[in-house]
C-alpha cells in the first residue's frame, strides 16, 4: 500500500480513537501533514547531498469551555505507537486547557464537510532522473534542488468533518552559471514541476537557458541609481506577490496595523485598473481547506481592476472583528496568507516586451525582498539572475545587480503600464520543515518607473 493510502488509514484510526475518547463538552480536530520525499541537491552538475525524508506530523486542536490548546507531534507511522502518542497529547491538552483563561476568538469547531482529493502520479525513478539531469547539464555549471514524492494534508474533527489532499509530483529548481568576458559570475534561473517527469521538458528548458547565458557572457554595465523604466519577468513578479502574503491582504493584519496596503484598503490610494489579483484554487496547487477545515471558495477576488474586493479572512479574525470567514489560512508566524494567488494577465505579448520597454531594464528575477517602510508599502530587494539593459527595443548588455526600494502603490499602481499576455504557474519550492504546497500564477509587468537605489 502506498505512503498516502497507509497514512489515510492511520489518520482514520487516530481520529476514531481520539474523538471516541472525548468527554462531554470537549471537541477536537486532528490535522495531519506528511511527506515521503527524495531531495537531491546539485552543485556543479554533481550531487552534493541526497536525502530521503519520510515524516508525518499531527496537530491536535483541543477545545473545552472556551479554551483552546494546540499540541503537535511527529508520528512514527505505526498505529500502536501513534495511538499512544495521541493519548498523551490528549491528556496534556486537558491539563493545559484547565490552566488557561478562555480564548474569546477561538472559533468553535464545526463540520465543514467532507472532501477527498487524490493526485497519485507515477513517481520518476530516482536513479534514472539523476542520470538524466547529470547528462543534460553535463556541459553547464548547474546547481539546484530536485524534490519528488507524495505530500499529504488532511484535517478531521469530532463534529464529523473530514478533508484529505494528497499529491505526488516533483520540482526541479535550478540555476545555470557562466562566467562573462570580465570574469564575473552570471546565471539564469529555471523551474520545472509536475505530476510526472517529462524528459523533453528539461532539455527544452536548458536549451532556452543556454541562449540566455550566451547573452550574459557579454561585459556587464554598471548603472547609476535612479528611476528606470523596467520589465519585471514573471519570476520577479512572483517575489512581489509573495510579499503580499506578509500581511498586505490579510484582514487580521490590517486591523492590527500590519498591512502594507492599509491606505489602499481604506480607500486613500488606488491601485492600477490593470491589476486584478485573486486566490484561484482551480490552479490545483493547494487544497482549498484550511487547517480548521474551512473550505475556501474556488476563486476569491482580492483586487478587481484595481479596486478592493475581498481581504483574506480566517475564522479567528472573523470571530474577533465580526466579519465572515472566507476560509483563509494563517500560520503560527503570520496572519492570513495567500495560498494560490493569481494575477490576471494583460495584453502585452511576450514577443513585444522589449519593443514596448524600448529603453530600460529587463529584470529576470528579484532576491531577498523586505519592507523598508511598511506604512508606505515600500519594498526593498535586489535584482538577480538574467537582468539586461535594453535600448531602443534591443538587449544591449547584462547589468550588475542593483538594489531597489519602491512602493507597491507605484509598482501596482501609478507606474504599472502593462501586464504580460501570458501568465506562468510557478509552483512553490519552499521546503522549510517540509515541502510546501501552493504557488502562484503571474504575468510579467511593464513599469514606467522603478526606483533603484544602490
Amino acid at each position: 500500500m502506498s505512503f498516502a493510502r497507509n497514512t489515510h488509514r492511520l489518520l482514520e484510526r487516530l481520529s476514531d480513537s481520539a474523538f471516541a475518547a472525548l468527554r462531554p463538552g470537549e471537541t477536537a480536530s486532528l490535522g495531519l501533514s506528511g511527506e515521503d520525499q527524495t531531495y537531491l541537491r546539485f552543485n556543479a552538475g554533481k550531487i552534493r547531498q541526497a536525502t530521503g525524508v519520510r515524516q508525518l506530523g499531527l496537530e491536535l486542536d483541543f477545545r473545552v469551555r472556551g479554551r483552546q490548546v494546540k499540541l503537535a507531534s511527529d508520528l512514527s507511522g505505526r498505529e500502536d505507537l501513534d495511538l499512544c502518542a495521541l493519548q498523551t497529547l490528549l491528556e496534556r491538552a486537558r491539563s493545559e486547557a484547565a490552566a488557561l483563561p478562555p480564548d474569546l476568538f477561538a472559533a468553535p469547531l464545526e463540520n465543514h464537510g467532507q472532501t477527498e482529493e487524490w493526485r497519485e502520479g507515477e513517481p520518476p525513478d530516482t536513479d534514472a532522473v539523476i542520470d538524466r539531469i547529470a547528462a543534460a547539464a553535463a556541459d553547464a555549471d548547474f546547481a539546484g534542488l530536485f524534490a519528488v514524492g507524495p505530500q499529504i494534508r488532511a484535517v478531521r474533527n469530532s463534529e464529523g468533518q473530514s478533508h484529505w489532499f494528497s499529491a505526488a509530483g516533483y520540482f526541479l529548481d535550478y540555476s545555470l552559471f557562466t562566467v562573462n568576458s570580465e570574469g564575473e559570475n552570471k546565471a539564469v534561473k529555471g523551474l520545472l514541476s509536475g505530476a510526472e517527469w517529462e524528459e523533453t521538458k528539461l532539455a527544452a528548458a536548458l536549451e532556452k537557458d543556454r541562449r540566455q547565458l550566451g547573452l550574459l557572457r557579454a561585459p556587464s554595465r554598471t548603472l547609476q541609481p535612479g528611476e528606470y523604466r523596467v520589465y519585471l519577468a514573471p519570476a520577479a513578479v512572483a517575489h512581489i506577490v509573495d510579499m503580499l502574503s506578509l500581511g498586505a491582504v490579510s484582514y487580521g493584519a490590517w486591523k492590527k496595523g500590519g498591512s502594507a496596503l492599509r491606505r489602499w484598503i481604506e480607500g486613500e490610494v488606488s491601485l492600477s485598473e490593470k491589476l486584478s489579483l485573486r486566490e484561484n484554487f482551480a490552479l490545483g496547487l493547494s487544497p482549498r481547506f484550511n487547517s480548521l477545515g474551512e473550505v475556501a471558495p474556488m476563486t476569491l477576488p482580492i483586487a478587481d481592476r484595481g479596486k478592493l474586493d475581498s481581504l483574506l479572512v480566517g475564522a479567528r479574525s472573523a470571530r474577533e472583528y465580526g466579519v465572515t470567514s472566507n476560509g483563509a489560512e494563517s500560520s503560527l508566524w503570520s496572519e492570513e496568507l495567500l495560498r494560490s494567488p493569481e494575477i490576471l494577465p494583460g495584453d502585452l505579448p511576450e514577443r513585444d516586451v522589449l519593443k514596448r520597454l524600448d529603453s530600460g531594464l529587463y529584470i529576470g528575477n528579484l532576491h531577498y525582498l523586505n519592507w523598508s517602510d511598511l506604512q508606505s508599502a515600500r519594498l526593498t530587494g535586489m535584482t538577480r539572475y538574467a537582468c539586461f539593459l535594453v535600448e531602443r527595443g534591443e538587449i544591449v548588455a547584462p547589468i550588475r545587480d542593483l538594489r531597489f526600494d519602491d512602493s507597491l502603490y507605484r509598482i501596482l499602481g501609478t507606474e504599472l503600464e502593462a501586464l504580460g499576455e501570458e501568465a506562468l504557474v510557478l509552483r512553490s519550492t519552499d521546503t522549510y520543515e517540509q515541502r510546501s504546497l501552493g504557488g502562484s500564477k503571474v504575468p510579467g509587468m511593464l513599469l514606467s518607473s522603478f526606483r533603484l537605489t544602490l
Partner: protein
Amino acid sequence: MNSPEAALPGFDPVTALSRVAPLADWIGLRLVEETSQHRGVRNGRPDRNHVRFSRGAMIEAVVNGRLAYAATGDLSEAGLHEAALRATRLARESARHAATTFSPGLRPTGKGRFSGPVATRFDTATLAELTGKLVTASSRLRVSDKIVETSAEIVLTEHRTHYLSSSGTDIEQRFHLVSQNFMATAQDGAEIQRRSLNGPVARCLQGGLEVVDFERLFDECERAGCEALELLGAEDCPNDTRDLLLAPDQMLLQIHESVGHPLELDRILGDERNYAGWSFVKPEDFGRLQYGSPLMNVSFDPELPGEFASYGFDDCGHRASREFLIRDGLLLRGLGSLESQARLGLDGVANFRAAGWNRAPIDRMANLNLEPGESTLDEMIGLVERGIYMSANRSWSIDDYRRKFQFGCEYARLIEDGRLTRVVRNPNYRGVSVPFWHSLKKVGDRGTFGVFGTPYCGKGEPNQMIRVGHASPHCLFANVEVFGGGR
C-alpha cells in the same frame, strides 16, 4: 517530555545502531527530540498556546565512498532498518555523479556529553503562572489608549541530540532555550509605529526560566510602550550621510548578514548558489583580505555560556571551540565544517549543523560575535558631531553575494554635537559590506556588550531554519547613507 527510550520500550540507541550498521560501509545515527512551548498573550488575552513534540532520526550511510541520508520519524527496529536501506540505496544511486567522496576523517570518533546551562527548569512555573506573567507584560506594554496592539510571547524549548556512528562516535547534548518577543503597536490616525524589546524575537538565550527577570521585563515593556508613542510624534529619519551608532540588537543583524553568511565555506563552494546565494569572498581571500578596520575582531564562539547557539559538538561530532575569523580586520578563517574544509583545503570551525532530525547538516553560523573594544558608550556619542543612533532591527535585505545591504530599525535618535537628541522614526541605512566594515571607527567596551540571537536563520536545500547567537558591543561607523520612510 518522553524520551525515545521511554516511548519505545526497550529502545537502546546503541543497539539500534548496531542493527543497521552491517547495511553499509559506515553508518551514522542522529536522534533528535525537542519539546517547544509557544505561549502567547495578545491584548491581555491568550492568543497562541502551542506545544510541539518533535522526535526522529537521521541515518547517514556510506557505500563505496559515497554518503547519503535518510530521515524517519519511525524509531522502531523496522523503521530504522527501512531508513538505513533508503540511505544506502541513495548512496548507490548518486555514486556516479557524487560531488564529494566520503573519508572517515569527516566524522570524528569519540565520546562526549554537553549540557547547556539551566538553573530553573521550565516546569517549575505552571502554565497558569506563566500566562499570568504574559498578561501582566501585555498590560504594561499598553501605556496609553494609542497603544492599539500588544503582544507578549515566550518560547521555551528543550532539545536533545544523540549522535552515534559505526566508527564509535557517541555524543549526547542537551539544551534549554528561551526566546522572547514583547511588542507594542501605537496608532494615531494614519500613523502606526511598532516598538519591541530589542526587535522581534531577538531575545534568545540558553537557560531555564532564570533568564527571564519578569519584574525587570515589566518595566522594559512599559518603556517599549512609551517609545512606540514617542515614535508616533517623531520626525522621519533624515536622508543624508552621517555617522551611525548601532546598538547590539542591530549589530546582531549586521554581523549575521554581512559577515556570517559570506564567510560560510559552503556558500563559497557554491552549494547555496541556487537559493541563498554565493559569496563575494573567495578562497584566496583568507589570510589576505582586510575585511574591515583594525578595530574589527570577529569570533566563532560556541563556548560563551548562555548564548543561543553554544554547544559542545557539531552534528558530525566535531568538538567545538572558539576561533577568530577576523582579527584586527584581517580575514583569517571561514565558517566551514570538516567537509567544507576538506573540499577547500582551508581551516574552518565546528559548524556542521542540521535544523532537525529531518535535515542533513550543512555549514551554519552558530555564535558569531564581535569582540568588545575600548570605548564607553558616552565616549562614542561624545565623538559624533552629526550622527544617528539606531536600535532594534525591523527590516533586512542583502544581495546574493552579500555585498549590497539595506537594513532598517525600529528606533533612532539623532546625535548632535556629541549628545543624543531628538527621536526619529523609520530609520534605515544602506551600504556595501567591506567598505562599511572599513568605516568602523569605534567599538564599545564590555560594558556596552549585548548578547542576542535569532531562531530564524534560513538557508539550505531542502531549506533549514536554525538558531544562531550574536553578541556585540555598540559600534560606531563613519559616513553611512541613512534615510527615512514615506513616498
